[in-house]
């Protein structure tokens, strides 16, 4: 799974924002080498710049200094093989387009495909996220979990190499969340994607990932970089009961709590 050749390289990323009375440094020198096919989760205290880092990787935001390289090429604007999935699916899906047309959006714009191919691929992806039969619905007619599946389907339809997901499950209920976790984990293994996943949920990160990166408070640096060597296939009950799982979780939570100024290890 872990090819040694660097696929997604984040080199010396600094990001400063204009703030009242000067500038605020959000990211203060982030270096990361992400291997092809890995599932990396980024956690950190709120406001540490996790989302900004992800947007820089997506080419949606320019770093103040440093650069991102994808397969050796500098990221300068959104690369075709990288799709960013927003946390706010209700705002990211186009409400005037049906589910089908939303999913086809990337295909229609990215590649010169025939109408038939687009429809076929759209149907195929919708089946993959278990939304067959909802083609003609509008996104706002669906539940939150279904809407996020539409957003994921739209991203996958372009057959990206890299999926960047910004707290994609934070707005859905706990059971829907488990369903979406399984969906993304399955797709990741099935399609050989590289996933970078921002979350505030340590458990979710450990369960899903092959590697966890914890950022410190802003100005953020990498506080912990931890390979997650839990066996596959993973299971929502069994994996989460493994002593290794609990150990990873405890180490990451300790870092997070220390950063937030919360003094407790009992809480873990």
């Amino acid at each position, binding site marked *: 799974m872990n090819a040694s050749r660097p696929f997604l390289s984040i080199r010396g990323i600094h990001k400063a924002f204009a703030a009242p009375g000067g500038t605020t440094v959000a990211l203060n020198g982030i270096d990361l080498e992400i291997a092809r096919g890995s599932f990396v989760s980024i956690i950190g205290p709120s406001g540490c710049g996790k989302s900004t880092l992800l947007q820089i990787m997506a080419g*949606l935001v320019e770093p103040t200094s440093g650069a991102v390289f994808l397969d050796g090429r500098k990221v300068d604007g959104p690369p075709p093989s*990288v799709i*960013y999935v927003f946390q*706010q699916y*209700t705002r990211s899906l186009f*409400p005037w387009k049906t589910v089908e047309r939303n999913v086809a*959006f990337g295909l229609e714009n*990215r590649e010169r495909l025939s109408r038939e191919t687009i429809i076929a691929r759209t149907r195929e992806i919708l089946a993959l996220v278990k939304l067959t039969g909802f083609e003609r619905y*509008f996104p*706002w007619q669906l539940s939150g979990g279904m809407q996020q599946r539409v957003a994921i389907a739209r991203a996958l339809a372009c057959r990206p190499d890299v999926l960047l997901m910004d707290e994609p499950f934070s707005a859905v209920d706990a059971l829907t969340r488990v369903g979406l976790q399984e969906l993304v984990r399955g797709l990741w293994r099935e399609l050989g994607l590289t996933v970078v996943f921002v979350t505030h949920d340590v458990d979710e990160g450990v369960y899903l990932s092959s590697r966890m990166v914890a950022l410190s408070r802003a100005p953020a640096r990498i506080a912990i970089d931890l390979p997650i060597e839990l066996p596959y296939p993973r299971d929502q009950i069994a994996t989460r009961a493994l002593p290794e799982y609990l150990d990873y979780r405890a180490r990451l939570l300790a870092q997070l709590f220390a950063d937030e100024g919360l003094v407790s290890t009992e809480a873990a």
Partner: protein
Amino acid sequence: MSDAVKTDLPAPAPPGVKTAGGIALLWRTRWFGVGFIALLLALWELAAVSGWVPSMSFPRMSAVLATWWEIIISGELVGELLPSILRMFAGYFIGVALGVALGLLMGYFRFFYSLLEPITEVLRPIPSPAYLPIVILFLGIDDEMKIFMISFASLFPVLLNTYSGVRGVDPIQLQTARTFGVTGWKLLWQIVLPSAAPYIFTGMRVSLAVALIVMVISEMVAASSGIGYFILSAQRGFKIREMFAGVLTLAVVGYVLNRLFVAIENKVLAWHYGYTLQQRN
């Protein structure tokens, strides 16, 4: 203009009001208000018959309706109305097209905003009758003048609303489009325009009412045909019943145009109503 907006609102259903039987519920229906109009017309008739008001300038409603019917079947009214409506639509669609185009450009490109915002703010507040004499000077009193007047007046509500709509496009939608490689003119056409459509329609509805007003005004000031000319010349020739019939005609035209507009808007923006309803819940 304002009643047009009101009639499209759903009738409010006051909570806790329990009424039994069909007659008691009548006041909640549309027929209640329609009945009120009929009552006013009947009072008009009564006032004219009893001579409370000088009958010279206040004919009986029944006489007005009879005259109205006469000029309808004689084709006189259609002969006056049709050219007016055609001029109105010509001007309206030119104004809407320019308003949408300029509003998109100003909302989307900072350059066009800086260039055009001041002149918009200077021209917009001028009441259209004020520049009518200037337009007559340059374009005469024929169709060109009226179409220009109507399109110029219809332009601003559409422009301002389109601009607001473009500025209000959710940045997440723009970012989403960018992550799929959609930028520039494609972004304008595929995301900004549909997203701003509810605003554009609001502007278009205001402009429709404005177009009707300016059509009548320009025909009253300078014309030899058209419904505005018809009303004014009827008044000058003491054909009072014709005058009232002309005004009633405009009421009907305004009402029908608005209903048509609402029907089209409901179809085009069905997604918007569903979406906002879902957001509210």
